[in-house]
């Protein structure tokens, strides 16, 4: 391109004014066009941010826990259990995350609800009595959960009652599992 421009300039020196003007215009156009079509690359900034993530889900509600039998002479009736539900978690915050559990309302004296959460990412507290754990007094059921995900871990409920507590018509409690640090 540079040789062409040089020759063009040399050529224009010998021309009358009008033709010199035309050559100058053409020369300028060629230079301008070369500058405009020289971009074969383009760049773009892409910022990827990962913010704190806490996710917990459960597979549904356990089956009804109904105490139906006991042993003569023993106040503690035969407890019943359910292991049919699971929970899954995902967190990227740190290695001190835990799961707490509480009821929406405490159980009456003489009735006991125990909870056991299995875990492969943290340390299970084993069987925890959550009968009187309400929102202000949630109990840890899994501690020291490492970053990452834990899927399909078993939730075990055990319900027991004393004969001295009397009968209990069908009642519900909402169990809240909280993934927190």
């Amino acid at each position, binding site marked *: 391109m540079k040789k062409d421009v040089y020759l063009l300039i040399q050529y224009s020196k010998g021309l009358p004014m009008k033709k010199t003007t035309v050559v100058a215009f053409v020369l300028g156009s060629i230079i301008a066009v070369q500058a405009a079509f020289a971009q074969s690359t383009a760049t773009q900034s892409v910022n990827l941010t990962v913010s704190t993530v806490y996710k917990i889900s459960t597979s549904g509600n356990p089956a009804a826990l109904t105490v139906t039998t006991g042993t003569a002479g023993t106040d503690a009736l035969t407890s019943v259990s359910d292991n049919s539900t699971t929970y899954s978690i995902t967190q990227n915050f740190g290695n001190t995350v835990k799961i707490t559990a509480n009821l929406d309302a405490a159980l009456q004296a003489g009735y006991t609800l125990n909870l056991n959460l299995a875990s492969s990412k943290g340390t299970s507290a084993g069987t925890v009595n959550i009968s009187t754990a309400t929102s202000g007094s949630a109990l840890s059921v899994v501690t020291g959960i490492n*970053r990452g995900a834990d899927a399909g871990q078993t939730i075990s409920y055990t319900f027991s009652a004393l004969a001295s507590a009397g009968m209990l018509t069908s009642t519900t409690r909402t169990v809240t599992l909280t993934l927190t640090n």
Partner: protein
Amino acid sequence: MGPLNFLALSSTLYSRSTLGRSTTWRKKFVLIAFFIFLFGLLSNFGYSQVYGTTTNKITVKVQTITIVQITGSIVNLTVSGTNAIAGQDQMIATDQSSTLLWGTNSSLKKVTVKTNLAAPKYTLQLVAVSPTVGTAASQVTLSTAASDLVTNIGRSSGSCGLLYTAIALASQGIGTDAHTITFTVSTQ
């Protein structure tokens, strides 16, 4: 003889002519003279007198022209709780707000893409969406090595959407990666 001298001569001839005495023939003579004059006048313009000639050689050269640009200069991808599923380590966020535009007059061209980050914490993938010209390559995981984005884009101007996919593992924790993505039209 110039046109004025011709008119003067025509006028003298007319006045002295025995044929010009009648009205009809006067009119005809005037008409004929006028056309002869007109012809002569036009001849002067249509066929200008040539006093000399010269030539000028013009060479037109069209070089390879390539242009590529992006609409939407900055993309911000955020992986948050809305992208996560409990029990899954992998979390994904996507963005398709940008468009890649290109133009080239050369055949056998392609668009490649790369990032400046040699060791990103998270995975960033890109795929061209619905290119108007050419063939979209498979989704690529961006690295410092150029990867094909769109192929067979010779002699065309075209565009495509840019679908970014960010993949982060919960086990990787929180953080940021700042990429500068470079798109290049190069020879295929």
